[in-house]
């Protein structure tokens, strides 16, 4: 077992390291920027009042004048939730569709490996970038914050990263469902990006426009970095819901993939 995951995971390691370095760089920029923003005496309250309601809701900007709130908005809400989520969905979109499009899948499925096992092991390889980034970036964030003379709860930083894992897996599962259905990798990859981005928007607009129920299927609803960092509130039920959703999407993907013709 796990031969496919090992093989695919190794191929993803380089990308995962580069991604993590990128995240560390961005995190470093934000952390380094914070003291100067704080000192510049910008009246955040006034600035925030001038922002559209939807934007304020989307990025939880209400608490941006503390290091916790600042990182929650700039780093976790935007980079982690949106960009990393989109990246994982994009990668997942290519998982099966790329093998099908190139014909590489033939040599794997000619071995005594079930399609479901192939699918799940490929998906598991997505954990490589998710785990590497979530293991290293929090260390950088805590160290960086200490370096600029601020302080932040280490437990909450670890918590915000830990809770992002179910969220990112859900994004990946959405991409995978598109991947088993599409024949072309580029379509599945773009589909993954669009789906996660749209779900992010739906949740944002819905919560801002009194159509709260609309965002109920958006993964974004069940992961709130600001709640963790600013309030110390952990949405464990949300995380479990995301994991359940991931499992459901994997089951659906496998059920369809077992039956479809592979060109």
């Amino acid at each position, binding site marked *: 077992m796990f*031969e496919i995951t090992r093989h695919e995971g190794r191929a993803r390691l380089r990308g995962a390291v580069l991604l993590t370095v990128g995240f560390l760089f961005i995190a470093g920029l934000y952390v380094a920027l914070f003291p100067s923003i704080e000192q510049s005496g910008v009246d955040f309250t006034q600035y925030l009042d001038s922002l559209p309601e939807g934007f304020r809701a989307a990025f939880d900007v209400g608490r941006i004048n503390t290091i916790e709130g600042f990182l929650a908005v700039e780093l976790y809400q935007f980079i982690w939730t949106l960009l990393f989520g989109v990246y994982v969905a994009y990668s997942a979109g290519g998982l099966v569709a790329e093998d099908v499009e190139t014909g*590489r899948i*033939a*040599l794997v*499925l000619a*071995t005594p*490996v079930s399609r479901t096992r192939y699918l799940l092991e490929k998906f598991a390889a997505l954990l490589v970038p998710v785990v590497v980034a979530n293991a290293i970036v929090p260390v950088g964030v805590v160290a960086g914050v200490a370096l600029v003379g601020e302080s932040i709860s280490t437990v909450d930083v670890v918590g915000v990263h830990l809770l992002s894992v179910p969220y990112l897996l859900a994004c990946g599962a959405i991409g995978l469902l598109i991947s088993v259905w599409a024949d072309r990798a580029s379509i599945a990859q773009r589909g993954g990006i669009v789906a996660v981005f749209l779900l992010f928007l739906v949740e944002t607009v819905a919560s801002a426009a009194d159509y709260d129920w609309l965002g109920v299927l958006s993964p974004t609803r069940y992961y709130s970095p600001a709640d963790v960092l600013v309030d110390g509130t952990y949405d464990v039920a949300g995380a479990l819901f995301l994991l359940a959703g991931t499992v459901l999407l994997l089951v659906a993907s496998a059920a369809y993939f077992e039956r479809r*013709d*592979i060109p």
Partner: protein
Amino acid sequence: MSAISVEGLTKAYGDVVATDALTFDVEEGEVFGYLGPNGAGKTTTIRLLLGFQSPSAGRARVLGADVSDPAALRDAKRRLGYLPGDPAFDGSITGAEFLDYQGALKGESRREELLDLFRPPLDRKIREYSTGNRQMLGIVQAFMHDPDLVVMDEPTSGLDPVKQARFHEFVRDESDRGVTVFLSSHALGEVQRVCDRVGIIRDGRLVALEAVADLRGRGGKRVDLHVDGDVERDALTGVDGVSDVSLFDGGAQFTYTGEYDALLDLLAAYDVADLTIEDPPLEDVFLRFYGEREEP
């Protein structure tokens, strides 16, 4: 028991029928050639046999496993080797890494032995491989877990003549060891050289199923002869095995089904400037031996 058993196997994509009620058996230990022009349905048949696609009608068994039963077929694949036509690899890994991966999934007891015969540059990234090297890597992975049955789609495409000959010899040796081989080809000569029996597929239908020994006498060769001077029609038509003669200035073209010695005697009378003896196009073979074109 048959290694492969196909009964009424049909695959349609909408209105297009790719394989139409195919029925044939491949016996254990034989080398079975699956001959047909491009687009005849050879690859579709192979995909059905490997369970990549589901039949629209009919059934097939591979090593006893029903291809519509994924669990049974998966079990059978332990004893199955497969070489796709123009095999696709992950170009970013080396040949050795690819074989490690395949070995982990299905076994690799004969890997080293095969690498003595076929030598792709294992330490190089596969994207740097020539077509011939990719094909050799594909052949090694198809046989390295010591399968009982090997299915190959156009296995010699991309191999130079020397490597083709080595591969044909290898297939005969494998057959002597008891391995069953199913190979598709669009080259009559290849099938005649290595196969025991041949199924000929055309427009998705099996048009002939016979022993190679029977086919050999019927296929003939296409002879393209250029000489100094002219060729008389009578000089050719009088010879046994010559047919379809067409003359042109300084030469002739004809089909020859007789003994080579007699042909050489015939040619000795001329100042031969250029000579080509090759397999006739498959379509010509169909026309000659399986009646008129069946469909427009």
